[in-house]
């Protein structure tokens, strides 16, 4: 059984290895948006040199790490699962002798692995070469970062999984996914550091899994806070969301069976 999931992991990796031109195009977009965001945020800094604990180097690192992580966690779902639910093809997936949730997660991790090498490194390298960059001071941070990124992929994957599952009840889940697409950037800390938000907003966000997707891995890398705590929170959300996904899928499956697929 484990071999199957390892196989899926590799498949996820290989599938994206062939998208040469698209990856380059994606990188270009990352760099353009990164440059624009850096401009705006550095302008915020221009007066005082430090805002909410971010100096120039930390701000720059925040932006480029965010752009890099964007492709790794793949913030926006392509809706493939939701489409399969809508057309009924999902019945084929459910009929297979595997754990659908695990299968999707394995494939996603494979893809994330490929993205880590080819979509994360370029924008970060670009940023680090052209701007003042804040590198980790402690060697253990690198390890913590890899763990954090992994957990972020899982958390984001489960959020997307749950969103796609709404298709079982909503038939047209486009609206839900459009809502996520519009708001996720800000909520996950891709656009503006969450530390910039007013206190009440930050408290609310702390009760959601969203920061765990982008802001937390960045915090681990830039050593803002205790890595054990940061990773612990991510792990808790990951476990919670996996359990939720499992429960929802079970209910959805029952619904399919009852309706006759």
């Amino acid at each position, binding site marked *: 059984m484990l071999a199957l999931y390892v196989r899926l992991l590799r498949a996820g990796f290989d599938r994206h290895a062939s998208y040469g031109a698209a990856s380059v*195009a994606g990188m270009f*977009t990352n760099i353009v948006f990164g440059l624009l965001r850096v401009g*705006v945020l*550095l302008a915020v800094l221009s007066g005082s040199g430090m805002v909410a604990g971010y100096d120039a180097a930390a701000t720059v690192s925040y932006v480029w790490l965010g752009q890099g992580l964007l492709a790794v966690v793949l913030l926006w779902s392509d809706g493939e699962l939701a489409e399969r639910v809508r057309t009924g093809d999902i019945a084929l997936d459910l009929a297979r002798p595997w754990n659908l949730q695990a299968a999707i997660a394995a494939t996603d991790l494979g893809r994330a692995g490929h993205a880590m090498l080819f979509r994360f490194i370029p924008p970060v390298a670009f940023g680090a070469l052209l701007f003042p960059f804040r590198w980790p001071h402690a060697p253990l941070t690198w390890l913590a970062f890899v763990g954090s990124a992994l957990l972020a992929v899982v958390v984001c994957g489960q959020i997307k999984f749950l969103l796609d599952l709404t298709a079982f009840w909503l038939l047209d889940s486009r609206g839900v996914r459009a809502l996520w697409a519009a708001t996720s950037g800000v909520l996950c800390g891709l656009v503006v550091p969450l530390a910039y938000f007013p206190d009440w907003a930050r408290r609310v966000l702390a009760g959601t899994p969203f920061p765990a997707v982008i802001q937390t891995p960045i915090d681990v890398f830039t050593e803002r806070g205790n890595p054990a705590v940061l990773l612990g929170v991510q792990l808790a959300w990951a476990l919670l969301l996996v359990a939720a996904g499992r429960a929802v899928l079970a209910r959805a499956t029952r619904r399919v069976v009852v309706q006759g697929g």
Partner: protein
Amino acid sequence: MAVYRRLLASRVRGQLAYPLSFGLDLLAQALGQTIELVVIVVLFGRVHTLGGFGADEVLLIFALAGIAFGLADLVVGQLDELPRWIRTGELDVLLLRPLPVLAQLVTADMQLRRLGRVLVGLLVLGVVLTRAPIAWSPVTVLLLISTPLVGAVIIGSIWVATCAVAFWVVEAREVANAFTYGSSLSTAYPVTVFAPWLRRLLTFVVPAAFVAYYPVLAILGRSDPLGRPDAMRYAAPLVAVASVAVAGLIWRAAVRRYQGAGS
């Protein structure tokens, strides 16, 4: 002319046939625009000026740029579908009709929900106009009305020119995104926030600065903090004309390329 109207009419009717669904789509678009507004508000929670401009002034730029982008998205947003048209060979059908290809693509559909962005822009504009230090005059009023329209033409030209890249490398469509949605981002802020080299790029190569920044300087009666000539503040219409010309050339070359490369 009548043909395009009829093509669009059937599409538009189709969208309005499901008012609830349409309403939600409109809301989603509005939400997208509002999120950017939230970002600006958050930033001004931490500082008082951005790039030398106060909150109301930045919001004025944001509002006008948002309306311009929404209008451009409404008219030429269809071009995002270009890779699909090329891949399925449906583009050939367009070549077989006695009409310009671009006009056909653009009128193949018109997603009214994109007006959601325009609505948000208008709302913010309404609020800001009561608070910003505007030097009111007939010229100012003219500028307020014309800026989003002229800006839409500039952004639309950028859209056409960059989507044309799909004729050369179909998978490189995302490159167009960098310019089109990048336009949305870069036009919403005063160009002074960006580094000097980026500022020059956004003024002379991809003329994002003329969509809202320069016209707003004129509306506020301010001179360019970067020291550029005051006349540039009124140059947006000229820039729009030049953008259309350049986009037209690129598009024609792109269609010729499609006929040359085959499928």
